[in-house]
Structure formats: structure tokens, C-alpha cells
């Protein structure tokens, strides 16, 4: 199976926030939009942009982590936080240039979009997006 | 300034032969013991007096040399002066005796009776070194040179055969052959673990990589042990030679000698020996032209008993805090700076040259089946002759204590033998019933004690065994590194329990608690300090349980030691009212009318049981119950 890529086409976003709800439910936060790893922002009249982790190849969060808790999976290309190693220093939440690392104050942990790895392995936000603003592609396999 | 340097083995051998055949070798020797014990007794003054009365030209004229040597071992009787080759042995020498010694025994041929050692058994003075039981009953291997050489003089060491073993190893043996020699000798480490040195060396050799280290453990932290000190102070070259040979066998190019902070004289003598050996080409680049290079560095401790533990020692050498680490990965695989390392005790290294020179069969011919060779013991406590004793493995405790030891110090019921503590704070007590135990690594372990580094503390009936256990526990609590819970908290709590027993607050349940806690500490501790920590308590419980029970059930200390459980009282029909006790008492607990013996009394509540009154009373009128 080739690794997945989430494609975002903001011109199709209608600001319904179904993606946020889907994300929050998938990751077990019972629908609190604040717990979603996808945040849809309003940037103009009828203009919306869903912002979520770009799974950077040279991620700022990875480089900023003093314990090496964040790493990119070489096969899936997903950037992942090892919660057991993380010491909650918050460097990554500041370092991400796109603001995609979030801190959950209830559970006291950092989280980010993980393309629903371990929760069905298929991005739920894309499944629920009514306009296909969020869609999934298979990438070329890693050589 | 030493200008001799041996570029080849032959050059060394030629010089050694010349030395040994020279006039210097044939001269009479006046040996002034300057080991730490004798120095404390004023030996420096004695040595200076000899320097004054026997300056160099006079020495040459008389055909003798005056040497300041290391510790003879007979520390009780110092300062010591020995005249060789006759072997005249003078004890308790003071600077004022020196002119007479020079006139009568050095220039003249007489023996000064007043300075001779008196045999406690026969009551007669003994003139000769060889006739003194303390020395006659010893087999000195590791301590072979101490007391007979000037440790700061490398020629002295060579005169006694020093560095022959190194020359032999470098010229006629491969590193593998040297290793096989040590394996064949079945040399077990003298530091306490008793692990087979050959096996340790072999594991290190097998570990990969091209950097290996050898270390001499000179931390010697056991209270009452000073064997390693006298070797480092009195025969430093023996340690160096052993290390260089070991380095050669293991193909290591760097050795370390770790000396505890409290041994500055040892550091001084070792440093001097290293410089001299380096100057001669016996250490450093291309030793004796063999192509083998080896360096030795001295690393000093910071004053922690735990740094005698090998992994803690290595951390200390690395400049870190001396804390042990798990031994699941052996030091022979990853030790100092994560390189394969062999660590052995100073006494072990000092034995190596003998084995290489005389062959492994000579060594295995000494000792018992499972423990070959000899062992140096520091015999202290309630014996007449305290000091260092080296005997063959298999010698019995009775032979050691009543032979070279001279028997018990005090007379009467209280002076009788009660127990001997072996192995320091990691060891245990051996009672009278086991006095005929042949001493070796395994026999002592089998009876609940251990050889340890060789400490032997003899106790009589004035010793309380519960107090002994408490003392060793307090030592370990102080010295624990504190990293692991069982040792740090467990030994501390065990100390609380035993202290309460000494204070008369113990309960029968305490003995069960000690058992359970001991097992947890032994199983759970990270290093040997913790693991062996309960030993003094367990062994005293094993052989002297009745004493613990007396403390707990009867609130009584049979030995009359535990302050909370004893009372001092005046035996009025013996008292003559002299009032000496009243004056001696620092807390004013004694009252009485002068000259009226029947009025004297001790206030038990005010009395702090210091014993000053007992010490001053000439009538024996103070009783301790």
C-alpha cells in the first residue's frame, strides 16, 4: 500500500467544520471542536481554509524537540509524537511555523494531525468533507 | 639524578646483575620503618637521628646502608628498627636510643636487650626477626619486600629481584602466554570478590576493540584494613610491575591506580616510583625495547567508601560522581569510558610478578584446593600483636590469632575470645566454635562471613555483638551512595531497628523484621555495598542470637556496653571514699562525703555511662551492671 497524502483545496471549503467534528470524534474527544487537529479558519467573506499538519519532510517540530520524541515515519511519511518520550516542554507548539501542534490541557499532551494512523488509517476529515475540499491521494512508494 | 635507562632487556639484566653483585648488595642494612603507623609513633625523628649519626661517609666507612622502609606490619610495636642481615629487631625505638644503637649494635656487635621484643608466651626477649612468631609464621608474597627496601629507591626493588618478571614476560612470553600463566595459577582477586583473575582477564581479552584499560583498586575502604596501603607505600614498584605485565597480557596501553584520598603517602611513593620506572625505560614508550608501550596514571579518590566498588570507581576515574551502575554488562565488555577494562586489587597486582617469575605451579602449591596462594590480613582488635599478617590460604583462624597475633590482649573472663569479624562491613562474625576454620574465600562465605579485603577484627567478651552490628550499619548508612532504595532506605531503617534494640526499645517482632528486610536488601540492592550490608547483622544474629534476645526481652546488655542498658553503681564495701570518681565525673552524677566509703552513690538518671569513674577507681569499687 502506498503512503497516503491529504490534499487540501481551500477554494472548495464552505466552512461547515465537519472536518473538525470528524477529527475530534475520531480521536476520542467526544466532539469538542477545540480538540480537533484540523482547524478551519475564516479568512474572508465566504472564504475558509482548513489548516492542518503538512507532515513536513524537514519538520520544525522534529528539530525543535529536545528529547527526540517527534519523528517522521520513513514509510508513511507521517510525523508522529511519541507520548511516552515527550516531556511537555511545549517547544514544538511554538516552533511549528503553521501552528499545527496543539496542546490538550485536559489530557496534558501535545497532538497533531496523524492522518488518523491507528484510528482507521484513513483521514476521517476527508471522508466527511462534503465538497471534497479535503481528499486523499496515494503517493508514489518511497524508494 | 638517575641517568640509567634500559634500551633493551639485556641492558636491564646486565644492570640488575651488576647491582646484585655489587658491594651495595652485600652491605649491612639498618632498616628504619617509616610506614604510616611508625611515622605516627615518631619514626621520622628516629630516621633523622640515624641520618645525623650515620651520615653517608660513615655508612660507606662501616660498609652499611641506612634505609627508610615501608610498613613491617608489626604496627603495635613501632617505631621499628631492624638490623640486617643479623635480623636484630628493635621495637619502640625513640630518637634518644639511636646513639646507643649506633655505638653498640651498628659499630659494635651487641644486642640492646631493653629494645627487644618480648615474646608474650615465653616472657623472654627475642633477638631475631626470624624468631619472632609474628614474622616466623608468615608467608610473605604480596608483602615480600615491605620493610626490607626503601620504597623510593628503584635499585632496592631490583636488588630483591624486582622487574625480572617483566623482563621475562617481554622477552620470552607472548601476551597470550602471560594470560595463560595467570589462568593456570588460579589467582583469585584479593579485593573482596575473590573472582578468578584469569577468567576476568580472558573475558576482557575476548571483548572486541583495540582500547583496553587496566586499573589497580587502591581504595581500601574497609575500616581497619591497611594491607593495600602498606603495599602502595612500602613496595610501589610491585604494583607497577604487576600492572605493566597485566597490560602486556591484555594488550592495553593505559593503566590507572586509584588511590583513596586518605593515603597521601601512598600517592607520593607511587608517583616517585612511576617517575623512576619511566626514567629507566621500564614504563612508557617501547619498554625495554620490546615495542610494547604502557602508561600509568594515578587517580585519587574523593573520600567515599562506595568508590571501592569497581563500577563506582570507574565513574570516579571518569570524573563523575562515584555511583555504581548495574553489572549486567560487565566491565570487561564496557568498563572505563565504555571500553573493556580489568580492575583488580592492589594486592592482586603485587602478586602477579611473583607468579610470572616463579611460575603458576609454585603459586598453586600454596594454599587450598579452591583458594591458591597467600593472603594479607590486617589483624586488629583485642589481640596482643596487631598488624599485617600474610599467610597461606588454609591457615586456620586460631593459628593466625594465637600465632602471629600473639593471642588475646586482655586477661580474665572478659578478655576471652568471643568472635572475629572478617571482611569488614560486608563480612560477618565467626565465633569461637569455628576458630579452627581454615581460612579461604569459600570457607568464610560458607559460615556466613566473607574474606573481603582481609580485615580481621578480634573481639573479646567486652564487646557487644549487637553494638558491633549497629556500628557496621552506621558505617554503611554513611557510605551508601544513595542511588537505590533497598540500600539507602533499607539499611537506614535496619540501623534504626538495631539502634532501638541497643537502647532497650526492641521487640521480638524486630528480629522477624530484620530477616524480611535483609532478604529484600540482599536481593534488591544495586551493588555489593547494599547486597552485603545486612551481613554483619545476619551473622551476629546467627551466632549470638541470645545477645539480641537479652537486649530485647531482658533489656540487658550481657557485655555491658550498650549505654542505655547498663547502670553504674558504687560497691560501698570496697569504696574508701577517696573521691577520685567524684572529681572525674563530668556530669556530677556522683555524691559522697570524703573518706566515708559508705556514703558514695551514683545518680543513675544523671549518669551518662562514660566510664571515667571506673577508669580512675583504684579499688575496683564501681560496678557496671
Amino acid at each position, binding site marked *: 500500500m502506498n503512503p497516503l497524502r491529504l490534499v*487540501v*483545496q*481551500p*477554494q472548495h471549503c464552505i466552512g461547515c467544520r465537519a472536518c473538525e467534528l470528524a477529527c475530534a470524534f475520531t480521536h476520542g474527544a467526544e466532539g469538542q471542536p477545540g480538540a480537533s487537529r484540523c482547524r478551519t*479558519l475564516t*479568512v*474572508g467573506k465566504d*472564504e475558509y*481554509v482548513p*489548516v492542518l499538519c503538512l507532515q513536513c519532510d524537514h519538520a520544525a517540530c522534529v528539530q*525543535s524537540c*529536545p*528529547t527526540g*520524541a517527534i519523528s517522521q515515519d520513513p514509510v508513511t511519511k507521517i510525523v508522529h509524537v511519541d507520548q*511516552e*518520550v*515527550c*516531556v*511537555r*516542554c*511545549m*517547544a514544538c*507548539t*511554538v*516552533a511549528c*511555523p*503553521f*501552528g499545527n*501542534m*496543539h496542546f490538550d490541557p485536559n489530557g*496534558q499532551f501535545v497532538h497533531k494531525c496523524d492522518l488518523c494512523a491507528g484510528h482507521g488509517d484513513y483521514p476521517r476529515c476527508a471522508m466527511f468533507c462534503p465538497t471534497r475540499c479535503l481528499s486523499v491521494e496515494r503517493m508514489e512508494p518511497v524508494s | 639524578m638517575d641517568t640509567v635507562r634500559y634500551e633493551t632487556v639485556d641492558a636491564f639484566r646486565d644492570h640488575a646483575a651488576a647491582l646484585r653483585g655489587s658491594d651495595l648488595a652485600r652491605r649491612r642494612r639498618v632498616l628504619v620503618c617509616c610506614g604510616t603507623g611508625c611515622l605516627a609513633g615518631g619514626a621520622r625523628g628516629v630516621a633523622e637521628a640515624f641520618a645525623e649519626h650515620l651520615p653517608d661517609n660513615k655508612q660507606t666507612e662501616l660498609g652499611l646502608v641506612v634505609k627508610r622502609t615501608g610498613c613491617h606490619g608489626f604496627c603495635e610495636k613501632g617505631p621499628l628498627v631492624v638490623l640486617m642481615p643479623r635480623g636484630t629487631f628493635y621495637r619502640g625505638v625513640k630518637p634518644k636510643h639511636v646513639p646507643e644503637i649506633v655505638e653498640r649494635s651498628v659499630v659494635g656487635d651487641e644486642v640492646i636487650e631493653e629494645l627487644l621484643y618480648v615474646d608474650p608466651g615465653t616472657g623472654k626477649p627475642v633477638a631475631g626477626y626470624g624468631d619472632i612468631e609474628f614474622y616466623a609464621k608468615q608467608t610473605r608474597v604480596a608483602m615480600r619486600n615491605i620493610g626490607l627496601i626503601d620504597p623510593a629507591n628503584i635499585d632496592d626493588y631490583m636488588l630483591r629481584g624486582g622487574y625480572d618478571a617483566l623482563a621475562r614476560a617481554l622477552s620470552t612470553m607472548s601476551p597470550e602466554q602471560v594470560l595463560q600463566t595467570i589462568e593456570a595459577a588460579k589467582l583469585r582477586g584479593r579485593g573482596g570478590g575473590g573472582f578468578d583473575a584469569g577468567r576476568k582477564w580472558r573475558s576482557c581479552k575476548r*571483548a*572486541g576493540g583495540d582500547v583496553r584499560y587496566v586499573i589497580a583498586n587502591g581504595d581500601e575502604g574497609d575500616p581497619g584494613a591497611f594491607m593495600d596501603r602498606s603495599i602502595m607505600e612500602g613496595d610501589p614498584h610491585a604494583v607497577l610491575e604487576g600492572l605493566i605485565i597485566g597490560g602486556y597480557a591484555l594488550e592495553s596501553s593505559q593503566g590507572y591506580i586509584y588511590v583513596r584520598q586518605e593515603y597521601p603517602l601512598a600517592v607520593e611513593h607511587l608517583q616517585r616510583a612511576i617517575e623512576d620506572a619511566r626514567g629507566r625505560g621500564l614504563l612508557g614508550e617501547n619498554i625495554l625495547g620490546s615495542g610494547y608501550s604502557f602508561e600509568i596514571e594515578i587517580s585519587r579518590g574523593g573520600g567515599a567508601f562506595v568508590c571501592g566498588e569497581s563500577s563506582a570507581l570507574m565513574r570516579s576515574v571518569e570524573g563523575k560522581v562515584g555511583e555504581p*551502575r*548495574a553489572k*549486567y*554488562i560487565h566491565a570487561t*565488555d*564496557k568498563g572505563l569510558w565504555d571500553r573493556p577494562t580489568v580492575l583488580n586489587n592492589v594486592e592482586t597486582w603485587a602478586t602477579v610478578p611473583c607468579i610470572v617469575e616463579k611460575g603458576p605451579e609454585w603459586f598453586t602449591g600454596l594454599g587450598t584446593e579452591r583458594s591458591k596462594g597467600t593472603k594479607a590480613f590486617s589483624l586488629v582488635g583485642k589481640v596482643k600483636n596487631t598488624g599485617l599478617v600474610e599467610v597461606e590460604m588454609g591457615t586456620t583462624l586460631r593459628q593466625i590469632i594465637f600465632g602471629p597475633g600473639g593471642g588475646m590482649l586482655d586477661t580474665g573472663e572478659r578478655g576471652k575470645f568471643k568472635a572475629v569479624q572478617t571482611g569488614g562491613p560486608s563480612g560477618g562474625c565467626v565465633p569461637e566454635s569455628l576458630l579452627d576454620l581454615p581460612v579461604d574465600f569459600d570457607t568464610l562465605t560458607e559460615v556466613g562471613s566473607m574474606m573481603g579485603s582481609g580485615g580481621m577484627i578480634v573481639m573479646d567478651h567486652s564487646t557487644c555483638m549487637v553494638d558491633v552490628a549497629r556500628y557496621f550499619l552506621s558505617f554503611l*548508612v*554513611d*557510605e*551508601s551512595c*544513595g*542511588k537505590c*532504595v*533497598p540500600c*539507602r*532506605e*533499607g539499611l*537506614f*531503617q535496619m540501623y*534504626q531497628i538495631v539502634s532501638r534494640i541497643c537502647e532497650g526499645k526492641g521487640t521480638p517482632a524486630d528480629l522477624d*523484621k530484620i530477616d524480611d528486610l535483609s*532478604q*529484600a*536488601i540482599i*536481593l*534488591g540492592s*544495586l551493588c555489593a555495598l547494599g547486597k552485603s550490608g545486612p551481613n554483619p547483622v545476619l551473622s551476629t544474629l546467627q551466632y549470638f542470637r541470645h545477645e539480641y534476645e537479652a537486649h530485647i526481652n531482658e533489656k540487658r546488655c550481657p557485655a555491658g556496653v550498650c549505654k542505655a542498658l547498663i547502670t553504674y553503681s558504687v560497691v560501698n564495701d570496697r569504696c574508701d571514699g577517696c573521691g577520685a570518681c567524684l572529681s572525674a565525673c563530668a556530669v556530677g552524677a556522683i555524691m559522697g562525703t570524703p573518706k566515708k566509703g559508705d556514703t558514695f552513690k551514683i545518680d543513675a538518671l544523671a549518669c551518662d555511662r562514660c566510664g571515667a569513674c571506673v577508669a580512675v577507681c583504684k579499688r575496683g569499687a564501681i560496678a557496671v551492671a
Partner: protein
Amino acid sequence: MEQTGPSTFYMTINGRRVQASAGEYVLDVTRRNGIHVPTLCHHPAVEPFGSCRLCMVEVTKEAWKGWKGLMTACLYPAADGLVIETDSESVHRVRRNVLDLLLARCPDSGVIQKLAAEYGVTRTTFTPRENPDLCILCGLCTRVCETAATAAITTAMRGHERVVGTPWGGPPPDCIGCLACAHVCPTGHITFEEHGLTRSIWGREFELERCADCGKPLPITRDQAAFLCRRQEMDPSYFSRCADCQRKMVAERMGRMARWQTLGLAQEPAERGKEVAR
């Protein structure tokens, strides 16, 4: 170091056959297989230490001919053919005593009380410490500070006097206020406070970084930002804005690009106009 033997192999834990790899510790294997072994001084962010002794397990091997040893799982290397018991009588004796001893040291710690109760200890049978705090001397704080921060705190003194301390007992000069120590402390002994722009811990006060755009405090201190730039080799601009502002910025940029997409343009209209004018 030479590693003999296969690189993956099998061990037996509590009668179950499990796979393990060279370089792992027994504790890694138990965790991976859902086998519970209690720990207090273990944390994946730092090297194992072996100080609490709770993860003790009974180990044997055929070559040992029946001899069993108690080893700490966190530091014992996984090896081919190991047979491990995680709940034998000896193991429980050690754990029970360790927890009993820790309860004497920290009688008020909820974490220790709970763990001790699991081994049948509801009150300590030893002499409790006077004026106890919650520090069990697991060393996690000092180790994480050394690994992930500036080694500002360390252990001082020896044996029963051992404490987690700072240079000369004062506020640690090297502390950056990252709170890693507080977050790894298993008993909650290390506390901190945050009010407005200030964070205080270990007797020191730190100023929180502020967002260059909106001025709100960031969740890292200024010292921490400087440290991260140095240590992680990153430009200070990475640590100068809050996540909300970053997100807004990225959303606006993406929004603009989406607008061009909708208009069928290759780039921003104003720019295009300039091109034409030239």
C-alpha cells in the same frame, strides 16, 4: 562491542514465548507485549537508571542450571533463551519492601500509597521520615534536565542525605524554566507557578516569550527559546509567534492562493499588473 548471537530471538516471560531484539532491555519487551511490570524511576526520554528496583524480575537461563537471579528489567539486556518471571515470591518481597520503605520516606504521596496498597502495604512498617516531602529520589528530574535541558539540577550528598539539589542550594543559574522536571516527576514533588507573563520554579522567575504579532504569552520562557535556538540549531524566528497567529498567517496565505486558483490566475493580480506595465 561484539554482539554474539542472532539479532532477533525468543524469550519466555511468565510462560509466554515472546520475540525480542538485540539491544533491547527486558522492560521494553514486557511493555511491547502488554506484560505489566511496575516502575517509578523509568522514563523513555532518558536512559534507564535502576534506582527504584521496582521493575525487578526473576531471570534464569538453561545454562545457569537452575540458578535464578533478580535483575532490574529496565537495565537487563534481552537475550536469546531468557526465562523470566515477573511476579515470583522473591520479586514481590523486594517490591513490597521497596514500597514500604518509600512509604516511610514519603507517607503523603498518593502515588506511593496506591502502589504500596497493591502489594499489601497500607501503612509503613518502618520509621516514617520527619517533615517528609514527596521526593522519592528517582532521579528522573535530574536525568531529564541533563538530557533535554541544561543539567541545572543534580543530586547532591550521599546515602540518606541525598537530595535533588542546585548549585550551593540556591536558585539554579542554568535553569531555563522548561518544566520538563515537573512533568516527569512521578509524585508531583516539583511544582511551579504561572501568572501572566511570569513562570516560577526552583526559586527562579522566568519571563515567558511573547508573540511578536499579538503579544500573548507563549508557553515557553525566553531562556527556553534562547536555549532551543542554540541546542536545536534553529533560528529565533521559529520561537517568536503563537500557534494562533501562525495559523492565521498560513490560512491567509493559503486563502489568497485559493482565490487565484478560483480566478484562474497563476499569481496575485497586482503582481501580474506590474509585469504587464513593465
